[in-house]
C-alpha cells in the first residue's frame, strides 16, 4: 500500500522542547520508553535486519533451501550480469513503468486542475476517482484480463466495432505491456490526482490573481505559476511511482498466469510480461535457487535505487533552470 504524501507537521510549541535543565538519569530509568518502542525494533530485527543480512550472505552461496550451502564467491553476481533473462526483465519492467507512469502523471495533473476549478460535486468526484485504488489487485487483474481477452474481450469487441483487426493482447509482447500499463494507470491516476489536488490547494489564490492582472492566459499561468510550485508534489509522486512501479508483481502475475505455459511466474508468452520481481519469484520459489534468487533481489534493489536517483536528479535539475 502506498504511503501518504504531505504529512503535516505543525510547528512544535516551545514547551515541547526538553527542559533546559534536565536531571541526569541513568539509561535504565528510561526502560518504559524503550519497552514501548521495542516491538517494532524486535520485529524488524527478526523479520527485517537479520533476513536482509542473511540474504546478502546467501547471495554468495549456492543453496536449494534444503541441502547444505555451498560457497560460490561472486559467481552468482557474475552470472547475474550476463543473464539475458534478467536483463530482459529489467527492460520489461522499465517499459511497463514508462507506459504506465507518464500517461498517469499527465492524466492525474489534468484531473487535479479540473477538480480544483470545479466547485460543485467535488467530493463525489474525489470519492469516485479514488475508488480504483482501494480495490484488490487480484480482482482488478482478473477483471482486466477479461477486458483484454482475445476472443471475447471488450477491447477487441471495440476494435471490431470500428472495423479494425483484433489484437491478441495477452499473447504479444507489446499487447502484454500495454495491458499491464493500462491496469496500473487505471488504478493510480485518481490516487495521484487527489495528491496533486491537495498540492494545488496550497497555492495562494492571489498568485493566480497577479498572473491574471499581468495578462497571463490559463495555459501560461499553469506553466509559469502552477507547475513550478507543484514541483515538490510532482517529485513525491514520481518517486513513489518509481519505487512501486519497478517492483510490480501482482499485476503481471495474475494477468498472465492463464497464458503462462511453464510456471505462474513466467510472465506470459516470450516472458514479455516478466518483471524483475516476477523473475525473482520464479528463480527462488519455482527453481528453488535460493542463492541466485538472493543475488537477483540485490540486483533489483540496485536498479530501483539507481532509477530513483536518476528521476530525482532530472526533476531537481529542471527546477534549477
Amino acid at each position, binding site marked *: *500500500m502506498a*504511503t*501518504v*504524501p*504531505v*504529512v*503535516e*507537521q*505543525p510547528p*512544535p510549541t516551545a514547551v*515541547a522542547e526538553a527542559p533546559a535543565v534536565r536531571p541526569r538519569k541513568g539509561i535504565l530509568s*528510561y526502560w518504559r520508553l524503550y519497552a*514501548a*518502542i521495542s*516491538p*517494532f525494533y524486535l*520485529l*524488524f530485527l*527478526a*523479520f527485517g535486519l*537479520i*533476513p*536482509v543480512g542473511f*540474504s546478502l550472505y*546467501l547471495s554468495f552461496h549456492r543453496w536449494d533451501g534444503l541441502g547444505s550451502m555451498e560457497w560460490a564467491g561472486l559467481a552468482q553476481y557474475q552470472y547475474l550480469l550476463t543473464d539475458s533473462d534478467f536483463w530482459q526483465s529489467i527492460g520489461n519492467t522499465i517499459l511497463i513503468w514508462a507506459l504506465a507512469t507518464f500517461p498517469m502523471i499527465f492524466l492525474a495533473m489534468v484531473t487535479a486542475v*479540473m477538480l480544483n476549478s*470545479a466547485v460543485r*460535486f467535488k467530493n463525489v*468526484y474525489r470519492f469516485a*476517482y479514488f*475508488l480504483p485504488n*482501494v*480495490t*484488490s489487485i*487480484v*480482482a482488478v487483474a*482478473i*477483471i*482486466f*484480463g*477479461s*477486458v483484454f481477452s482475445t476472443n*471475447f474481450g*471488450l477491447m477487441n*469487441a471495440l476494435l471490431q*466495432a470500428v472495423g479494425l483487426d483484433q489484437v491478441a493482447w495477452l499473447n504479444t509482447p507489446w499487447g502484454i505491456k500495454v495491458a499491464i500499463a493500462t491496469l496500473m494507470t487505471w488504478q493510480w491516476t485518481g490516487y495521484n490526482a*487527489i495528491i496533486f489536488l*491537495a498540492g494545488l*490547494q496550497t497555492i495562494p489564490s492571489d498568485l493566480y490573481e497577479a498572473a491574471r492582472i499581468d495578462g497571463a492566459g490559463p495555459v501560461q499561468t499553469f506553466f509559469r505559476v502552477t507547475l513550478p510550485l507543484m514541483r515538490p508534489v510532482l517529485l513525491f509522486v514520481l518517486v513513489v511511482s518509481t*519505487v512501486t512501479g519497478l*517492483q510490480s508483481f501482482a499485476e503481471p*502475475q*495474475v494477468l498472465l*498466469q*492463464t497464458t503462462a505455459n511453464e510456471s*505462474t511466474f513466467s510472465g506470459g508468452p516470450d516472458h514479455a510480461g516478466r518483471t524483475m*520481481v516476477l523473475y*525473482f*519469484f520464479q528463480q527462488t520459489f519455482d527453481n528453488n535457487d535460493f542463492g541466485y534468487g538472493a543475488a537477483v533481489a540485490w540486483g533489483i534493489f540496485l536498479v*530501483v535505487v539507481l532509477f530513483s536517483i536518476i528521476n530525482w536528479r532530472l526533476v531537481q535539475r529542471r527546477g534549477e533552470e
Partner: protein
Amino acid sequence: MASTIKGSRRRGIALHTVLVLGLLLSAFPFYWAVIMSTHTSTEIFSYPPKLLPGPHFLENARNLFDNIDFFGSMLNSLLVATSVTVLVLFFDSLAAFVFAKFEFPGRGLLFALLMAIFMVPAQLAAIPQFVIMAKLGWIGSMTALIVPAAANAFGIFWMRQYMKGAIHDELLDASKLDGAGFLRQYWHVALPVVRPGLAFLGIFTFMGQWNDYAWPLIALTNPDNVTLQVALSQLNGTHGTTDYGMVMTGALLALVPLLIVFAIGARQIIGDLGKGAIR
C-alpha cells in the same frame, strides 16, 4: 458582463462533462465485472458483448462456492486484516507517543533507523523470512502473515507527526501532576485526542492487509487454507479458461468488505490525504 457569465457557464459544462467521463472510466471495470458475473460463460464468449446485467448471478455464485472455500478464505482474510490492524494501531501509536513526546538517549538515532527501514524493499528479506518461518513452523498458517506485520515504520512515522501537533504538553504535564504514569498518559491523554489519525492508519492498514498478495502466495503453502486473494488467484489460474462468470463473481464478492470499509472511511482517507497540504 453577460457574455462572461455565459462563457463561464459553458466552461463549467465542458469541465463537468470531462470529469464525468473520467468518473465513468473509473467506474467502468466494476460495472463490467457485474455484467460478467451475471452471465454464463457461453454468453460471455458471444459477440456482440453483453452490456447489461443478466440473470445468472446466483448460479455463478453457487459454482464459486462449490469450487473454492470462499467463506473459509474470507474468514482467514478477515482474521489476518483485523489482527494486524489492532496490533499495528497499538504498537505504532505507543511507539509514536514515545518518539513524539519524550526525550531519551538514542532517540534521534533510533528514529533515523526507523526511517531508513521504511525504504528497504520487501523481496530483499523474502527468502530468509521464508526460511526463518519454516524453522518456526509458521509456514502455511496465518501466523506467518500476522506477526511480521504487527508493527511498521510507516505507521509510527504517521502517528508521530499526528501526535506532535495534537497532544498538548500542558495536558501531559497536568496528568503527570495528577500522578498518571506513562501508560495512563498514553491511554487516557494521548489516544483520545488522536482518534482521527488512528482511524486513518487503521483503515489503510486493513485495506493493505486485505489486498496483500505476494507474501501470502508464498507463505500459505496449503492450498486449502489461504486468504481470499490467493484463493481468487487459484481460481483464475486453474479454471481461468473454463468459467469466467464464476471467477468474476469471486472477484466482485471479494471487493465487498473492502468497499464497505472504504465507504465508512472515505471522508477520513481522502480528507487526510489532502489535509496536510491545506493547513
